[in-house]
């Protein structure tokens, strides 16, 4: 079983601060996705990274896939209260039948 560990589990910051969330594994993945989940709703895809070392930007969010395709990070610049939510990383393994393995999530609260 592939294991994805996210850190930190919880993060409470003030509006305007920067933060980084990490997603680590000992396994190599074909791709990695980041989802965001708001209370009472299902997760929604933010980004997919496929190539080792790949960096993608989505407004104030920067996503990076590790060179060895075992880890990823999400960096948020100048966090806003609207960024509050549960951030989940999820990985496609090789020969996994398109199944995703999810990390435990990072719960982010941005206070105004």
């Amino acid at each position, binding site marked *: *079983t592939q294991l*994805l560990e*996210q850190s930190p*589990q919880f993060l409470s910051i003030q509006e305007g601060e920067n933060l980084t969330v990490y997603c680590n594994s000992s396994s190599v993945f*074909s*791709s990695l*996705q980041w989802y965001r989940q708001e209370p*009472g*709703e*299902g*997760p*929604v*895809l933010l980004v*997919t990274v*496929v190539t080792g070392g790949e960096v993608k930007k989505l407004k104030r969010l920067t996503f990076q896939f590790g060179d060895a395709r075992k880890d990823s990070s999400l960096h948020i610049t100048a966090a806003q209260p609207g960024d509050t939510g549960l951030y*989940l990383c*999820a990985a*496609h393994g090789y020969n996994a*039948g*398109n*199944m*995703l*393995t*999810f*990390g*435990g*999530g990072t*719960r982010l609260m941005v206070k105004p």
Partner: protein
Amino acid sequence: NAGVTQTPKFRILKIGQSMTLQCTQDMNHNYMYWYRQDPGMGLKLIYYSVGAGITDKGEVPNGYNVSRSTTEDFPLRLELAAPSQTSVYFCASTPGRTSGSLAYNEQFFGPGTRLTVL
């Protein structure tokens, strides 16, 4: 398109009761999934299906059953509810192999069913 719909939104069961969680998608996706999410945790895969008539176990299948008689519907059955099955259940779908590289496939999630077993 409604996307992925789930019913009911909430349900309370007594130990030993049974119920079916309904999931329907109108995007003509081949692949469908059932996950459970315990409080403050990520999602764990219960069962999945790569097309009508084909289902397979995920990480935590014990106590559950599924069927996939049509492309649109993927119901999840709990036969003898136990307190350990108290959780939020999410159904998801993705296009599958007909849409190009699987690595980029986004999973589309329903709004979830919150189940409590007392």
